[in-house]
């Protein structure tokens, strides 16, 4: 089985992956999500059996890292200064992308819908690839995109 050089993956997907981390894990966790995803991917890479859908594989890892980070952040006690830092990071967000409320709404979606909405609308991922990422059927992938967008539209137009 011939795997492409890992550097090729990094060159091709770094930008999208970082944006995915910001959108789904949040500003405060994006860097950790990004680094942890690549480390986990590097660890597993030589043992991969298939090289035909590396993007779906990579973003599935990222989705799981984002969920883990979210959970551990929720559980561990956060020192007061860190809270202030996080608040500062969040309040810087509008300057950086102009739509922090939109990403906050995306992060309020259930994980699969969050991933589905981002990968479909922002990356233009085909449904068969999205299904592989979500480890679901194509119908389920479509449903996740549809439901996610519906909720966002309700919030966004409210």
């Amino acid at each position, binding site marked *: 089985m*011939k*795997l*492409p*050089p*890992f*550097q090729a993956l*990094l060159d091709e997907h*770094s*930008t999208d992956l*970082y*944006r995915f981390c*910001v*959108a789904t894990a949040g500003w405060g966790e*994006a*860097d950790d999500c*990004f*680094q942890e995803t*690549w*480390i986990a991917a*590097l*660890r597993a*890479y*030589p043992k991969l059996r298939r090289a035909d859908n590396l993007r779906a594989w990579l973003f599935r890892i990222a989705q799981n890292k984002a969920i883990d980070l979210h959970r551990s952040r929720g559980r561990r006690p956060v020192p007061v200064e860190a809270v202030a830092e996080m608040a500062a990071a969040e309040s810087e967000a509008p300057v*950086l*992308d*102009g*739509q922090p409320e*939109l*990403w906050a709404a*995306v992060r309020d979606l259930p994980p699969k819908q969050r991933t589905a*909405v*981002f990968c479909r*609308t*922002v990356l233009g991922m085909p449904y068969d690839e999205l299904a592989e990422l979500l480890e679901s059927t194509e119908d389920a992938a479509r449903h996740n995109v549809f439901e996610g*967008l519906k909720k*966002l*539209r309700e919030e*966004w*137009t409210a």
Partner: protein
Amino acid sequence: MNEDIETALREAAATLPSAAALDLQRVAGEGLLDVAYATVDSPLGPLVVAATPRGLVRLAYTGSRDEGEVVEDLAGKLSPRILEAPERLDDVRRELDEYFDGRRVDFEVPIDWSLTHGFTGKVLRQTARIGYGKTSTYAEVAGRAGSPRAVRAAGNALGSNPIPVVVPCHRVLRTGGALGGYTGGVERKEFLLRLEGVLA
């Protein structure tokens, strides 16, 4: 807001920051950087250099092959965990700079011989012992590698040298003094021999 949500998402995503770099020090620290590579400028054109944790494993002239082909070849032969990591090749770059400047006669960076096997490996290890400004012949290195009659095989071994310059196959000539061939083209061999004062 009447703007459609999908357009809003796409537009907002395009303005998200993208300037994130993988922490290569951490990758190496966790033992996940099997092969590091970089491009080094030289008087012979850009060189692709690659190292494993054991040492310098490849030096490739570019021109006939591009960097991408060299990297893909290494991914197949050594490990797909190959990353561009110039800091990992700082010592190699410095020694090459000094060599091409005429300020270095010996390379000290460790060598990883993983890309050589059998007789080729023996011939190249013998070649590595030929000193700066000295020359040998195909027949001599064949003999020192244990097969005095395998002159042609020695020539092939030198032609497949994965680490030219540092493993100085340019110092091996034909019996009688003709230059013979060279991995990077005979003009490069001439350049190196002139640099070392062998040719006027």
